[in-house]
């Protein structure tokens, strides 16, 4: 706009050379008169603009005032008839008038727009308490979540994740783990057997009763040294308040040249502190017996019962959570590892069980019932992926 006005002025002054003399004669009077006109014009248009009721009225005013044929434009044309002296006074004044009207128009236009928008928005009121369209969120099962939690913890300690078949041979599930055929532990495990065709006289395969056969398979495949955990489903023919025919275990195995039970204790203490997110949670190692470890220990964690509620990591009660020990030399040998060179520890605990303890889930049987109410209540959000730097659980 500024540039345009400057051009206009130079063009007008170029044409006006011949008329200069006449103009000078009338200059004194005209200057006075023009000044009065312009004041009137300004008052007239500013008041019209202020009173304009809508954008159409405003456009009319604009055309009448600063449009090509508007009053101000007509005045501009008259500049050519003026003397240079007159023009020097009248030109800038006209331009100023034009600017003033234009900015008043713009301001009014914006104000009208705002008012119209306000009006429209006022009519667009919604009851935002109505329910949303909904983006149903799913959940992860506690067994999956806790498996990821313990994988994160043991990964940090250098354990990798190994897996094995759920239907396994009698040898991997029992014999290789130093549980011979007549061993009472074998009867106590309530083993599920796969049916055999008539004439197939191999010992029946079993549904693995623990994740320990994965120890043997991994030792065979990878040799020593070794740091693995083996999470997964296991099966025992038992069903009551606290037992289900399928549940989940995680097995841990560390084989090296100088691993001791003291390393086992540290590993488990670190695990419990990280998993339950309680620094300094106490553990108790009690001598016990498992065919595949020697010496063996059952491990308890500190807990108390307050008003029927279990509290982990406080008080002076103990809760048994896992079995562990130094891998029996026969088990190492069964896995193809020389027990005169290598030694190590193993442990096994129930994933469902530690999930129940950590998250206060009362009934094991409900884990496998797929009740929507239970899944929603005890499940985990898809983005709650456990990691150690952000904290395992929210």
């Amino acid at each position: 706009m500024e540039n345009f006005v400057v051009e206009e002025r130079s063009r007008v002054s170029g044409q006006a050379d011949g008329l200069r003399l006449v103009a000078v004669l009338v200059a004194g009077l005209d200057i006075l008169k023009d000044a009065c006109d312009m004041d009137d014009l300004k008052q007239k248009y500013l008041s019209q603009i202020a009173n304009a009721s809508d954008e159409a009225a405003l456009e009319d005013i604009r055309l009448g005032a600063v449009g090509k044929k508007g009053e101000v434009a007509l005045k501009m044309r008259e500049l050519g008839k003026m003397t240079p002296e007159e023009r020097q006074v009248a030109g800038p004044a006209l331009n100023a008038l034009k600017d003033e009207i234009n900015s008043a128009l713009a301001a009014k236009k914006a104000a009208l727009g705002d008012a119209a928008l306000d009006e429209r928005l006022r009519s667009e009121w919604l009851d935002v308490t109505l329910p949303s369209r909904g983006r149903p969120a799913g959940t992860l099962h506690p067994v999956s979540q806790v498996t990821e939690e313990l994988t994160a913890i043991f990964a940090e300690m250098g354990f990798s994740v190994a897996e094995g078949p759920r239907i396994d041979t009698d040898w991997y599930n029992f014999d290789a783990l130093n549980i011979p055929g007549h061993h009472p532990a074998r009867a106590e495990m309530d083993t599920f057997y796969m049916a055999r065709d008539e004439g197939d006289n191999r010992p029946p395969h079993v549904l693995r009763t623990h994740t320990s056969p994965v120890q043997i398979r991994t030792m065979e495949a990878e040799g020593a040294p070794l740091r693995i955990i083996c999470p997964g489903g296991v099966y025992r023919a038992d069903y009551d308040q606290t037992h289900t025919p399928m549940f989940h275990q995680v097995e841990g195995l560390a084989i090296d040249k100088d691993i001791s039970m003291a390393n086992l204790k540290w590993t488990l203490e670190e695990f419990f502190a990280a998993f339950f997110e309680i620094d300094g949670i106490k553990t108790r190692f009690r001598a016990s017996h498992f065919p595949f470890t020697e010496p063996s220990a059952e491990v308890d964690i500190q807990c108390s019962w307050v008003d029927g509620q279990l509290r982990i990591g406080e008080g002076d009660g103990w809760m048994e959570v896992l079995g562990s020990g130094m891998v029996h030399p026969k088990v190492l040998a069964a896995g193809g590892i020389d027990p005169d060179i290598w030694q190590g520890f193993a442990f096994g605990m129930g994933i469902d069980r530690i999930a129940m303890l950590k998250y206060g889930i009362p009934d094991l049987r409900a884990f496998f019932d797929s009740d929507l109410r239970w899944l929603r209540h005890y499940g985990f959000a898809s983005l709650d992926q456990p990691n150690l730097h952000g904290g395992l659980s929210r």
Partner: protein
Amino acid sequence: MKFTLSWLKEHLDTTASVDEITYALTDLGLEVEGVEDRGAKLRAFTLGFVKSAEKHPDADRLRVCQVETDEGLQQIICGAPNAREGITVVIAKPGVYVPGIDTTIGVGKIRGIESFGMMASERELELSEEHDGIIELPSGNVGDSFTDWLAENDPSKVDPVIEIAITPNRPDALGVRGIARDLAARGLGKLKQRDVEAVDGSFSCPVSVSIDADTLEQCPVFYGRMIRGVKNGPSPVWLQDKLRAIGLRPISFLVDVTNFFTYDRNRPLHVFDADKIGGDALRVHRAVGGETLVALDDKEYTLTEGMTLISDANGVESIGGVMGGLPSGVTDETVNVFVEAAYFDPVRTAYTGRALKINSDARYRFERGIDPASVVDGIEHATRMIMEHAGGEASDVVIAGKVPDTARAYKLNAKRVISLVGMDIPEATQRQSLTALGFRLEGDMAHVPSWRPDVQGEADLVEEVARIASLTKLEGVPLPRLTAGVPRPVMSLVQRREVAARRTAAALGYHECVTYSFIDQPSAALFGGGTDATRLENPISNDMSHMRPSLLPALLQAAARNQARGFADMALFEVGPVFTGGEPGEQHMQVSGLLVGRTGPKDVLGSARDVDVFDVKADAEAILAAIGAPAKVQVMRGADDTWHPGRHGKICLGPKKVLGIFGEVHPKVLAALDVKGPAMAFTLYPAEVPLKRKAGATRPALKVSDLQAVERDFAFVVDADVEALTLVNAAMGADKALIDDVRVFDEFIGGSLGEGKKSLALTVRLQPRDATLKDADIEAVSAKVVASIAKATGGVLRG
């Protein structure tokens, strides 16, 4: 295993408290499961002294007694015949609960005279069955606690009963003496010497004993002896008290003796009535099969081939190591008793016990392994106890077979022990622990005592040393990692895919289920399973008889259960193994999702609708993308008949590589599993998704053109059975350089097009690379698209 403190102290000389003892037991691996404080219920009873006893004016058999108590002289009415002046009695004051009659004593009037309490009998305090009169104490002061008096004068009545759990490797701890030995080794006292001197027989045993040659493995040794002229009957009070305290019912003295030594020394014994042994000869042999016996539990058992039996001229009299027979059992009238102390092999005993479903104390012990050498002392202990309390005279001992040789020794490597346990246990301490447990050390060789069948190698010595040293005292030592520095990833590709599939499915709104790996045969059969190869021999119920061939049946069953609970709409998924056979490895990871009902509850926005095939298709595609499947796939038909034949697709890479299936579940399947549809599902096979071609994280360079893309819409009329993907592929192939994308945006079937026809509308996006497209270029490409589609499908542009 239960025992009382006083029983323990018969073997252990100790001043340790109950707390110290129970702590040590648990720490030693003999986990304490409970301590019963039998004195607790008697704590409120106090001693009183009867100053006078007058006949009740209105009742001949009642006496009005004035009794000195800790609360002064009290009047108590008593009906016991022995209530009289000058005796020390046990008082239940008003407000005290009396366990034997399950009553809380109050103040009351008896025939018009007030009574302030009760004088108790033994039965009322549950101390014995004695109820002929009130308790009269030979000592004690007025006001003393009765519990304290018992603890002082008759401790076996009130001392605590300790119950411990026994791991299968510790048969020796099934006897009180074995427990005492462990405690002594821990330093909680001294194991008492309790050897027995043999009783010389005064006559030759009239009953002979033999073991068949083929039975010596099952029963290597049998000791027996007759004691004649005994007087059977109720056991002495101390013995009854002992047995009752640990939950055993006293039967008769001769039987109680066998139970006593079963618990005292883990030495099961059996007693025959010698007069009922036919032909004066017992023979230990293997069952032929088909023999029968009515055992001591009054049940008749049919025996199978190979079981260890003890027979006489009358037939089978006893099942060795499991249970004796009723016909030859002792009774109150028995005067001549034949005592058996034998060793039965654990494997055979376990087999027989399991087969006959007999859970006897004898079976429990023999199958864990008793001390074979204990036959020698066992029979002498029993002889002495029987003769002491029931009189009679003993024959000489008859022996068949011989005590099996269990002698063995293992090297104690003290350094290795320290290295394995991670605890600095001096060698002297190690040797001391083993010696206290009965091992005999010769140099560095530890000879195993006969009562420890579990010790089978050096590792067992480590366990014994560690146990005695106490694992509770162990201090943790950091575990070195195999590699230093930042831990490396630890999950395999398939494991990562499982996690990604789970988290994507949950993000898409599905709830994860974990269902049992076994399902019922009919449901398994619906999904191509239920074969004999996947059958369980011993399922827990018919609902869980076969390994699942698919995740879907259990998800559908879960949906039916939820529908029965009033939830009509749901999205469920599972990630887990399915089984194609019964061999290890015939197991495959699958991901299945199930949508049932509507997309959500009815809502103001009207957005809820029935779930459809394109919901599960989208979800299957999203999960496949998340686990790294390529975007360009084929969709084929021809999946099995669990799917709606016209509404399913197989997501494939070539005809044989199926990554997954999505579609509507066949109505027959829904009906069979009682699910109200609509039900849409998908099953994905994560292991089928190919690996990335190139290793590494680098991505190809991004190529973007600054030139404006142009979109053109086309509508083609084709036969109704022509699939959209065919058109899309034909259009894409029309000009590979220029055509960037083809999308189907409309489908119209029938109507003005006529039967068997449909119209498909496509948007083709052209992306120039070198120069802006001119109208002529666009026309040229359009012509190619039309030609290509015409060639592939016979489709023509819709007029």
